[in-house]
């Protein structure tokens, strides 16, 4: 057998690297902007395209899919070629993958501020972009598997297992969570409703964290940490246990996002139990990483790259300890819907994903540019700014969470709420939110320093586009290998199929009964579909992203039923495509807002929230008054809903426009009586109709 000469593609690695830096800067800047909006509402710029509700998804999508996504591909394309001793399968596919991914991001940047959103968190993009994303993901998969099949190294290193699991699971998650019925090019409804939609969304949402923010980065850790420390991973055997238990357990944990909601109790409990078990593999992975550095701590003290890795791994350990704690029902009862959750997420995002990405960039860019890092000192400064940034972000947020969480639950000795006005609790935590924004600023400055440092480095060196390499081709196997896992490590497709089965089990056990057994979602006969006007109002609520600040699910605690009204029942959401339960109470819950205030209150409040609620940080929505409600799709929307099982009659659909006008006239007339000058065809009428309907159906039954 002759040694084969080939080359590694470094150019594609560089391209993804640059995209990582650029999108990182953009995504974090948007994050800083929305942080300031929560303190100073004028930072919404009085403009619908830049209000919090619309650009908060822009921030999350930009950092998850643009910053972290490009970082994953950068890290994977570099390491995959080297551990398999093969060039990427196809340069053309690499290019399509790169440009296709950037196109998806650009489309997100355009459509999200325009208000095109499906509302599923971290999956807000509308259906055409979902399809494009699927195609690009498959391109990535083909390119990866092509490389694996052409490898010159018989066995797949543990990093590659994590990449494979990432690929299959993200594909499954994305497809199941994107089953939508299009109404027009930029509007669709999820086929799932209410409780079931919530279960699908959080199965997806939680596992996007697992399989987009965790498994690929664990794969990267298993490759880059040994490289950076120049010593092998602590235990290869532990990595086997780590890998399989992690991917098995993660998939079950989604329902911990829905504790105390109307999701069936047994699904919630499964979520709790599996979340707690998840500590074990998560910490196994962290320890495997940290122990790799044993005997190398002297290096850690001087090398900013290893410092980033150590703090990154520690942040991972903290976040994966905190997650299971937050899944305990007692803890969740207080922490859920508060700032604890964004703090928790940012420990993971800034510490784990951010710091690992920075370490890899600092390590990789000088290598493919055949030079030294421009300034190690500047990288050290970045490290300290980043670490301080995380502390200044997280500590005030934990503090704010405890303060606000307790205020929500505080009763006077007489048994009434101590802080019946929600806004009082918001105003209390504004100083903490200022410090949080400052923390974000520090972190961003660090990234700007990094960008400068890396650009200087690139200028000083020259890119080695194709790096020469040589290896023996794979020989046919002559003897049977003794152990099962060893055989598996050279069978990529079998590996893929087994991973697929492992990650499907949890989803199937939780979802199939929730969808098929009707006792899991008891119906309520007085709950009726929305009228045409209310449905249009609901779509405005979706467009404006109100769900990013307001929940619509009241938990069965005295502190909530006294504040918001009767707790939410599964049967109340059966026509909600999509569900709008939300995940964060920056503003009060709105599930029973219907009938709480007169129309005029809502009109004034949406025109300028400080009119009714002095000091409010809710954005103003004056354009809802000036803009005319678009009713061109109303009929189609009702038809789509009917297809999805909402019992609209033929008559209701045929008369949709007339019914809508009649209801709008009524509301406008009522407003006119209170001296409000408003057109009956303006958007705000539909919004008010929707808000006034919310949560009222069960009251009808009671009367």
């Amino acid at each position: 057998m002759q040694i084969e000469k080939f080359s590694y593609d470094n150019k594609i690695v560089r391209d993804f690297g640059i995209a990582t830096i650029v999108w990182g800067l953009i995504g974090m800047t948007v994050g800083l902007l929305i942080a300031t909006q929560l303190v100073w509402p004028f930072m919404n710029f009085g403009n619908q395209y830049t209000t919090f509700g619309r650009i908060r998804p822009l921030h999350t999508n930009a950092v998850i899919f643009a910053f972290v996504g490009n970082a994953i591909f950068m890290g994977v394309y570099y390491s995959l070629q080297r551990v398999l001793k093969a060039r990427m399968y196809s340069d053309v596919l690499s290019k399509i993958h790169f440009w296709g991914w950037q196109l998806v991001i650009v489309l997100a940047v355009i459509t999200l501020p325009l208000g095109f959103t499906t509302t599923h968190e971290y999956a807000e993009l509308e259906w055409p972009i979902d399809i494009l994303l699927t195609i690009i993901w498959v391109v990535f998969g083909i390119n990866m598997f092509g490389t694996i099949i052409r490898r010159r190294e018989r066995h797949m290193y543990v990093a590659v297992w994590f990449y494979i699991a990432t690929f299959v699971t993200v594909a499954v998650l994305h497809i199941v969570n994107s089953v939508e019925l299009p109404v027009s090019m930029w509007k669709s409804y999820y086929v799932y409703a209410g409780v079931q939609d919530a279960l699908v969304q959080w199965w997806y949402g939680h596992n996007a964290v697992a399989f987009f923010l965790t498994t690929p980065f664990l794969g990267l850790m298993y490759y880059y940490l040994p490289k950076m420390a120049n010593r092998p991973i602590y235990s290869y055997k532990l990595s086997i246990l780590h890998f399989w238990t992690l991917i098995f357990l993660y998939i079950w944990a989604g329902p911990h996002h829905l504790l105390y909601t109307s999701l069936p109790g047994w699904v919630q409990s499964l979520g709790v139990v599996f979340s707690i078990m998840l500590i074990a593999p998560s910490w196994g992975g962290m320890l495997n990483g940290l122990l790799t550095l044993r005997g190398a701590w002297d290096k850690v003290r001087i090398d900013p790259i290893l410092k980033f890795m150590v703090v990154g791994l520690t942040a991972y350990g903290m976040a994966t300890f905190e997650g299971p704690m937050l899944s305990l029902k007692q803890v969740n009862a207080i922490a859920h819907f508060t700032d604890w959750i964004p703090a928790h997420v940012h420990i993971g995002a800034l510490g784990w994903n951010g710091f690992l990405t920075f370490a890899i960039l600092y390590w990789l860019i000088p290598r493919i540019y055949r030079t030294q890092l421009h300034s190690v000192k500047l990288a050290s400064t970045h490290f300290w700014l980043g670490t301080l940034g995380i502390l200044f972000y997280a500590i005030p947020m934990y503090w704010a969470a405890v303060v606000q969480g307790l205020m929500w639950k505080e009763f006077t000795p007489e048994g009434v709420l101590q802080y019946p006005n929600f806004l009082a609790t918001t105003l209390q935590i504004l100083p903490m939110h200022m410090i949080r924004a400052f923390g974000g600023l520090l972190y961003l400055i660090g990234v700007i320093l990094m960008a400068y440092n890396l650009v200087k480095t690139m200028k000083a060196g020259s890119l080695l586009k194709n790096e020469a390499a040589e290896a023996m081709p794979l020989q046919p196997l002559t003897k049977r290998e003794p152990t099962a896992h060893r055989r598996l490590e050279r069978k990529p497709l079998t590996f893929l199929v087994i991973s697929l089965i492992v990650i499907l089990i949890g989803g199937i056990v939780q979802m199939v009964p929730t969808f098929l057994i009707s006792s899991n979602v008891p119906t309520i006969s007085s709950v009726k579909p929305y009228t045409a006007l209310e449905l249009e109002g609901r779509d405005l609520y979706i467009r404006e992203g109100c769900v990013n600040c307001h929940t619509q699910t009241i938990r069965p605690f005295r502190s909530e039923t006294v504040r918001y009204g009767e707790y939410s029942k599964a049967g109340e959401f059966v026509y909600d495509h999509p569900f709008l339960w939300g995940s964060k109470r920056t503003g009060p819950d709105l599930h029973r807002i219907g009938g709480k205030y007169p129309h005029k209150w809502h009109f004034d409040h949406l025109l300028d929230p400080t009119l009714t609620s002095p000091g409010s940080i809710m954005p103003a929505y004056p354009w809802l008054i000036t803009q005319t409600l678009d009713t061109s799709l109303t009929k189609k929307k009702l038809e789509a809903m009917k297809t999805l099982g909402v019992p609209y009659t033929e008559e209701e659909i045929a008369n949709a426009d007339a019914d809508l006008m009649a209801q709008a006239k009524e509301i406008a007339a009522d407003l006119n009586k209170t001296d409000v000058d408003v057109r009956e065809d303006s958007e705000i009428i539909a919004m008010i109709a929707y808000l006034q309907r919310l949560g009222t159906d069960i009251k009808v039954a009671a009367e």
Partner: protein
Amino acid sequence: MFKQITNLGGNEWYMILSLLIFVVFFIVVVVIMATMKKDYSDYMKNMPLNDSNDQEIRD
């Protein structure tokens, strides 16, 4: 504290079944891990370190 996972109103089977699946799965993985030979795991461990010619520019 365990009430939240034991009091499932007739749906305990989901929990028992799920945990059972996990236990079986876990045992299989442990057995596979335990039977792996040391020379092989050493070989795999060193894979990232033997894969490229960038040693000369280590800083």
